[in-house]
């Protein structure tokens, strides 16, 4: 039988998914700890033998193989712009949407100490924005100069004032840098243009970053590493929302992904105010938006979760007897490979998951403010109005392998309203119970219709 093999080189696990395209079925999935630090092939081979076992003797020939990766810390990007709320934010949003990890953002003209900070952060790509087309030029030129003189070994994507292009190009080529130019991420005031930047990041990822990540050797066996894993999840979410040729999607939706270090939230939704009379202000929102909460996670970030959420918020979801929540969070943050064993472990993980996802969705959603004027009460919205989102899908270990995914996802609907956050009101809750979202995003590059149908078949509705 012919099948497609999808590989996800994750930061902790290498995950394999075997798909029967003709019958639109998942044949088997398997995983093994990633071995990027030593030899990526070891983990891959282990996962592969485990996959073979699970296929239970079905003779499968993998005619096509595709891979995505978030190994070795993922795709690390530093974003530079002029004004924090404008081009810096626009650049950061574009990078997040491309599946990157933002390791730092800088505004206005950078100084030497900031250059040193950037060096220490070891980014794969520096995204250089600043100025609208024809707007401020001095900032992006200053920053390009600093990069060329001190950071010439890091790849740069320039997505700023198009009227600075020739000067920038000269600087970069004089210093023999690896650079790409793309359209301005904010060509005019309040116009967000993220798609060209996302495409450029992805291309550069395939061409250069894969090389540096020790993934090149694996490519012989698994085909091209096509995208960073979070970008694959984003693509799966987009196709699931919008549908494809001849197959309907679910409409506007959100995906939450609770990980060990971060909690990711994706929304595929215009986010326009639901009611008349709400003024929308601030930078326009990308239709497909991803946010990453670096302080909310199940293991590495368990202690920062405690610090942000506090006792009451966690206690609300943790009914266990041992109430030393701080100590538990601290110890989890030190045992990043810990798999829950006792009932209490499961209980506590569920509570952390609930709080992580609740806060991450709150932060992702827009805020509604009240203003009193002579014409009465008016509302101002900054960010997305997500109240009307039809579907909320959960993925990540604590949801897929945990015992009570419903309670965790339910928690997202219980947060936020007090502070005017416009979170989903009555979405259909769904679970990525076979853990296939990233694989299907990857598959949708080649087989969009099949990927969509498989997701619709395997995502489980809960209540």
């Amino acid at each position: 039988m012919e099948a497609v093999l999808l590989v996800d080189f994750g930061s902790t696990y290498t995950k394999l998914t075997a798909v029967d395209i003709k019958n639109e079925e998942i044949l088997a999935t398997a995983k093994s700890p990633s071995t990027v630090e030593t030899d990526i092939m070891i983990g891959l081979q282990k996962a592969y033998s485990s996959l073979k076992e699970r296929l239970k003797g079905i003779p499968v020939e993998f005619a096509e193989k595709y891979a995505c990766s978030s190994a070795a810390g993922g795709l690390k990007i530093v974003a530079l712009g002029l004004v924090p709320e404008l081009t810096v934010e626009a650049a950061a949003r574009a990078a997040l949407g491309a599946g990157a990890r933002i390791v730092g953002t800088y505004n206005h003209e950078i100084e030497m100490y900031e250059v040193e900070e950037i060096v220490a952060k070891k980014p794969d790509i520096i995204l250089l924005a600043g100025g609208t087309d024809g707007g401020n030029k001095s900032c992006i030129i200053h920053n390009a100069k600093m990069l060329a003189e001190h950071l010439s070994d890091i790849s740069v994507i320039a997505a700023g004032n198009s009227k600075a292009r020739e000067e920038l190009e000269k600087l970069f080529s004089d210093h023999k840098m690896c650079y790409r130019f793309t359209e301005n991420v904010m060509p005019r005031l309040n116009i967000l243009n993220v798609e060209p930047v996302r495409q450029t990041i992805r291309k550069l990822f395939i061409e250069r970053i894969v090389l540096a990540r020790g993934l090149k050797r694996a490519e012989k066996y698994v085909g091209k590493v096509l995208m960073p894993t979070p970008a694959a999840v984003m693509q799966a979410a987009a196709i699931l929302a919008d549908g494809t040729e001849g197959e309907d999607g679910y409409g506007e939706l959100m995906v939450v992904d609770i990980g060990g270090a971060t909690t990711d939230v994706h929304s595929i939704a215009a986010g326009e105010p639901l009611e008349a009379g709400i003024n929308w202000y601030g930078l326009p929102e990308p239709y497909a938006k991803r946010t990453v909460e670096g302080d909310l996670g199940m293991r590495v970030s368990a202690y920062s979760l405690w610090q942000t959420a506090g006792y009451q918020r966690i206690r609300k979801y943790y009914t266990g007897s041992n109430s030393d929540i701080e100590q538990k969070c601290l110890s989890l943050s030190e045992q990043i490979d810990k798999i829950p064993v006792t009932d209490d472990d499961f209980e506590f993980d569920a509570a952390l998951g609930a709080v992580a996802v609740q806060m991450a969705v709150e932060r992702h959603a827009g805020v509604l403010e009240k203003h009193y004027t002579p014409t009465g009460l008016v509302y101002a919205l900054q960010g997305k109005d997500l109240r009307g989102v039809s579907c909320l899908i959960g993925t990540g270990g604590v949801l897929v392998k945990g015992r009570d995914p419903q309670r965790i996802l339910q928690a997202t609907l219980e947060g936020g309203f007090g502070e005017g956050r416009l979170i989903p009101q009555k979405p259909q809750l769904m679970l990525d119970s076979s853990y296939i979202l990233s694989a299907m995003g990857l598959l949708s590059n080649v087989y969009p219709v099949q990927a969509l149908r498989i997701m619709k078949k395997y995502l489980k509705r809960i209540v």
Partner: protein
Amino acid sequence: MRNTIVLGVIGSDCHAVGNKILDYAFSSAGFKVINIGVLSSQEDFINAAVETDADAILVSSLYGHGEIDCRGFREKCEEEGLSEILLYVGGNLVVGKQEWKTVENLYKKMGFNRVYPPGTTPVAAITDLARDLKIDLSKLGKVKVS
């Protein structure tokens, strides 16, 4: 000569009379007034200032939504390369009776150089603007301002 100004009423505000009066007063004093009129967005103000190489932007708001309408104005100016431009605002900037100092501070924090309460005469703003731009009004010399 640094005497070009962009004038307009921000947001969904249609108060046209004061706008005409300011246009007349500033023009008479010798300023080159680019009046973009009522119902103007921040982008309209800034685009006009970029195109005309203006030295100051004068924002009016009479309907009480000024605080929402003016947020982020200074930041957008910076992004467009207008970091040196003067920003003035005046009108019924907030609703109800609020201490003027509080209102003034609110707008100064947003990056406005001068903030004017209701009842300010055009002469006051004209005098300030001439001082801020370091120009001698008598040399613009159309109408004598006293």
